């Protein structure tokens, strides 16, 4: 039998439909791969026994004629999604042995569609990071490697690494400033952040509520469409959930882009961008042109302010969202001499450096005397960024940019300079601020042989166009490279 872990999600679903292999066989192959991959540190919690049970149940369902959208597919869940009866950590020590009695809407949707869950994937602590080095459970290692350990990007580094290393057929991820797309770019995988409000945030540990969106990391554009169709959908339990039907996005993949107007924002050509990335972007423009799209130069003048605005809004919301981790009702409690000391010891020992840093920034920008200068101003800049996109949509249907300003870098290289680390999200953060869908598609390798992604941004609720353009890009790029299996 062929190596089942090499399959795409859609290929595996077809294979099971044709009876070529069972979910149990498929799941076992992935469990074996997971067990051999501890060097990558992609998982925080393995649920292999549970996965085999689910696979068995899936095979039984299939035998009785019930087949869900993800029937029998072994997948990974970022450890930011609460999973009933399975420890959930958010990559932090502060949650202790927290074991939810509830299932996040996103993972519940996938369960209902027949998913098999292999385990909970590693991430930056509370999804705060761009390299997966802030996880309390150690950094995730990128399967792509040149002489030294590289980061997989973050915060969904575990998800990206696991998909790139064929440990699972796809994974859930979340994206607050680029946390799906940047790791996808670093690992040669596809990652889409849908329109804000497409995926319910209910049951997903919050980082910055007005920016957080769930989405998948997958091996192909079509796989990402299949996963997103399962994850997305209206949820009355989330007040920001958009009440709209989930389209058949996988059908958009492969449709012609003839006549589609692709905007190229000049502001994304930043100073000091590696030549490889500029070249790949230029190549992408040529591919889209060749596929029949019309290339339109556009301007998004407030692009450079997106990242500083984000580093006001996100920490502000996070400082409040993370106040509930106080050691009183769940999670870690470090006893002090009194209540205040217990709060302080719990939160100081429970949170890592980056989370504490962001809580302090967030507290500062919201505090009396600074609110207007920082928080209110950042929100107004956010409006400016939205206006930039609205102007752009008058002349284009989708926007093509690089996903990240660099390829994967070495573990430890950027940890000491937060601003340098934050700059990783410079191309992705704009869509979070504006709530727009964005996808990263692997498009080539840099001079060191490391994957690079290109990003397609679309109008709100217009994932169909995003998938269409992304599939055309994927088709033209023909990216087939895989990392060497050095970790086995």
């Amino acid at each position, binding site marked *: 039998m062929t190596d089942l872990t090499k399959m795409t999600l859609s290929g595996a679903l077809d294979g099971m439909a044709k009876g070529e292999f069972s979910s149990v066989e498929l799941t076992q192959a992935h469990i074996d791969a997971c067990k051999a991959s501890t060097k990558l540190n992609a998982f925080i919690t393995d649920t292999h026994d549970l996965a085999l049970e689910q696979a068995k149940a899936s095979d039984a369902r299939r035998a009785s004629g019930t087949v869900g959208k993800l029937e029998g597919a072994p997948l990974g869940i970022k450890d930011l999604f609460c999973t009933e009866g399975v420890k959930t950590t958010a990559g932090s020590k502060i949650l*202790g042995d927290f074991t939810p009695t509830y299932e996040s809407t996103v993972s519940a949707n996938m369960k209902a569609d027949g998913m098999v869950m292999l385990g909970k994937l590693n991430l930056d602590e509370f999804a705060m990071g761009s390299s997966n080095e802030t996880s309390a459970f150690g950094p995730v290692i990128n399967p792509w490697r040149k002489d030294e350990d590289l980061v997989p990007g973050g915060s969904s580094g575990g998800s990206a690494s696991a998909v790139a290393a064929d440990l699972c057929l796809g994974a859930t991820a979340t994206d607050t400033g680029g946390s799906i797309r940047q790791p996808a770019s670093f690992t040669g995988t596809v990652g889409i952040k849908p329109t804000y409000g497409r995926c319910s945030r209910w049951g997903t540990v919050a980082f910055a509520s*007005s920016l957080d969106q769930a989405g998948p990391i997958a091996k192909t554009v079509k796989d990402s469409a299949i996963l997103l169709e399962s994850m997305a959908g209206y949820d009355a339990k989330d*007040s920001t959930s958009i009440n709209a039907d989930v389209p058949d996005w996988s059908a958009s993949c492969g449709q012609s882009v003839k006549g589609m107007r692709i905007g190229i924002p000049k502001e994304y050509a930043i100073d000091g961008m590696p030549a490889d990335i500029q070249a790949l972007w230029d190549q992408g423009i040529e591919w889209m042109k060749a596929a029949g799209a019309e290339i339109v130069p556009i301007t998004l003048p407030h692009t450079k302010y997106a990242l500083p605005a984000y580093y006001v809004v996100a920490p502000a919301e996070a400082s409040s969202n993370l106040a509930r981790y106080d050691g009183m*009702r*769940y999670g870690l409690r470090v006893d002090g001499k009194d209540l205040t000391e217990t709060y302080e010891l719990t939160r*100081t020992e429970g949170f890592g450096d980056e989370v*504490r840093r962001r809580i302090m920034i967030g507290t500062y920008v919201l*505090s009396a005397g600074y609110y207007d200068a920082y928080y209110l101003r950042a929100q*107004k800049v956010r409006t400016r960024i939205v206006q930039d996109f609205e102007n752009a949509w008058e002349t284009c249907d989708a926007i093509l940019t690089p996903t990240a300003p660099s390829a994967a870098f070495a573990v430890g290289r950027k940890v000491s300079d937060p*601003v340098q680390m934050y700059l990783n999200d410079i191309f992705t953060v704009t869509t979070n601020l504006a709530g727009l869908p964005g996808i990263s598609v692997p498009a080539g390798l840099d001079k060191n042989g490391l994957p690079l992604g290109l990003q397609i941004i679309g109008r709100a609720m217009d994932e169909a166009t995003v998938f269409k353009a992304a599939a055309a890009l994927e088709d033209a790029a023909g990216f087939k490279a895989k990392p060497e299996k050095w970790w086995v």
Partner: protein
Amino acid sequence: MAQEKSKPKNGVTAKDVKKIAKLSRLHVEADRLEPIAEDLNGILGWIEQLAEVDVEGVEPMTSAVDMAAPLRADNVSDGGKRDDVLKNAPKSDDGFFVVPRSVE
């Protein structure tokens, strides 16, 4: 590495760090106040560039979705799950959460 950092006019002081640490219930050792202030100033100094943006007459954006809050009907549809609520508690007794004494 530090070349990006520019000092804002009203930089964060050690005293500010003490105040925000207290507000956010984080413990900071006295000798860490100054280094943390410097660290935060590095980031806030970079954020200061927002001052360049003309935001005259611009409405602040509070949500990425332009909708009104959905309203739910007043039905009792939840609660009654004391065991679930207390399941992960570091300490509970007799149906209560037990926490350090909150009054002197």
